[in-house]
């Protein structure tokens, strides 16, 4: 005989095909525990359900099918009275309100995955870059009063901040490229206190660079764990940015590769859809070296190829969790070479 299993906030019900209750195994009366059971029931089987199945088997029911709780919607208030969960409709409503809040909390707790960390860290890196840029601009202006020649000689922001933070005043700098420049500098004189202030400002900037580096390493570890295939195809930076733009691994895994190709090019895409302007060929995938180095006339083609492989990689990472990054990468590079030879 066939029986239907319905998991409700009260517990697990076994119903016959006319929706009348055959057996019932209650949950505890504690809203928080109920919520945890309900979350568990969505993906797996709770202890109560197993007990229910055993009871039903004893009655001769062997064929089980799970049903959504809406078939029991109308009966629940009465049943909750019968099984001692609530004495009145009011009490039932209050009880269910508590269960629902706990359930929402449990779901929120479960909803955030490791990919959320990737998105946050990616965002933190992007914002650090912005902050560093602003501060470096200020540092170059400020220190430029004292040693204007150094700005031209040191094009890398990171080493500029590093030199100022290590040496402070111009006279103390010992650096092969700056030796001659400092002796004939047109910069103003800094008192000890002036140099000390700008030096400590520069120290803060170098600290931000260090922070950025450690975040990058951490991001790479996160990607190895959560999206190894995608990381191999796209590189850590592009992989993280793509996940962030898509809004998570699940959303990315469900995207068609044409959408992935244009992630980050929404403005151009909608301009095109409105009939103003050419269709965009690539969004954030442009930072992939293969797309970047492709000649202008085949950039779109390569972008499509890279996006297609990223889409496959994301699906592998999210669903099957198999690692085939090397194969994908070899395939991608072979196809890119072929496109290059066509010209």
């Amino acid at each position, binding site marked *: 005989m066939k029986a239907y299993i319905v998991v*409700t*906030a009260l517990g697990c019900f076994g119903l016959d095909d006319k929706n009348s209750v055959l057996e019932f195994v209650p949950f505890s009366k504690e809203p928080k525990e109920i919520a945890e059971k309900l979350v568990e029931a969505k993906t797996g089987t709770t202890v109560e359900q197993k007990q229910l199945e055993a009871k039903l088997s004893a009655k001769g029911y062997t064929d089980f099918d799970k049903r*959504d*709780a*809406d078939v*029991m*919607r*109308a009966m*629940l*208030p009465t049943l909750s009275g019968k099984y001692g969960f609530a004495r009145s409709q009011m009490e*039932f*409503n209050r009880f*269910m*309100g508590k269960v*629902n*809040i706990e*359930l*929402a*909390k449990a*779901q*929120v707790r479960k*909803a*955030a995955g490791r990919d959320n960390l990737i998105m946050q860290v990616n965002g933190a890196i992007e914002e650090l870059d912005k902050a560093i840029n602003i501060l470096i601009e200020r540092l170059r202006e400020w220190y430029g009063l004292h040693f204007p020649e150094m700005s031209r000689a040191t094009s890398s922001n990171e080493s500029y901040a590093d030199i100022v933070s290590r040496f402070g005043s111009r006279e103390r700098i010992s650096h092969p490229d700056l030796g001659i420049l400092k002796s004939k500098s047109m910069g103003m004189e800094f008192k000890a206190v002036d140099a000390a202030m700008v030096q400590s400002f520069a120290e803060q900037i170098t600290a931000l660079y260090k922070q950025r580096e450690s975040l990058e390493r951490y991001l790479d570890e996160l990607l190895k764990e959560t999206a190894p295939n995608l990381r191999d195809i796209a590189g850590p930076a592009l992989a993280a940015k793509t996940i962030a733009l898509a809004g998570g691994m699940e959303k990315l895994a469900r995207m068609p590769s044409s959408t992935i190709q244009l992630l980050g090019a929404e403005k151009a895409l*909608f301009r095109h*859809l*409105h*009939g103003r302007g050419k269709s965009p060929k690539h969004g954030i995938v442009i930072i992939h070296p293969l797309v970047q180095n492709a000649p202008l006339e085949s950039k779109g083609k390569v972008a499509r190829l890279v996006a297609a492989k990223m889409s496959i990689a994301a699906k592998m990472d999210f669903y099957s969790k198999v690692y085939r990054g090397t194969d994908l990468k070899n395939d991608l590079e072979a196809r890119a070479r072929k496109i290059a030879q066509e010209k």
Partner: protein
Amino acid sequence: MMRRRRIPVTRQRSKESVRPFNDLDGVYSIDGRLATVNLMPGVRVYGEDLVKIGRTEYRIWDNYRSKPAAALKKKLKVFPLKKGMTVLYLGAASGTTVSHFSDIVGKDGVIYGIDIAERVLRELIHHAELRGNIVPILADAKLPGKYAGQVFGQVDMVFEDVAAKDQVEILVRNSDTFLQPGGYAMIAIKSQSIDVTKPPKEIYAECLAELEKHFEILDKVELDPFEKFHMFVVLKKK
């Protein structure tokens, strides 16, 4: 993200400055701004102004942040939300509008707030715990069967503010499942999420035609300039 634009204030105002708005249940007008009676005096939900008049505290209902408020400002005549109602609210988000609905239905009403995004529901859960008449549900409004077990009985009103291509169908499906006969529905149609390339008027016409198969249309207004490309429609289940 900080949404607050300026520092909110609690002000004491005289009795003359408040009057019922269009004789609606629980909606007031204070110096030309919409307001509801704060169910949790002293607590702000989204940085809105609080106004104290005598012993009653009102929350200003921002018509730039909340679509029903915008609709009322645009002279919507029919607004059937009343004290004690049970409302299914699709697209509850962090609870800006939900909180005002919660003020209006009061302690005896219930708002079931459905949203698919856990980030915004975090804010809603906080206020649900305080207010006691909001039931937050993390679910996809497209699949009513998945949360039917959490919504009890039939509801008096279904409200939908979901930016989805099939938002009309979502409303119909939820109304079929939860709305009692003769119950009300309100929907904020966002033409930009149905088809960005078509002119909004065309999309409104298509949506209204579809809605008329299931509902009687009681009233409708466009929400410009408070919300661009939106139409607010009040419906009654046939």
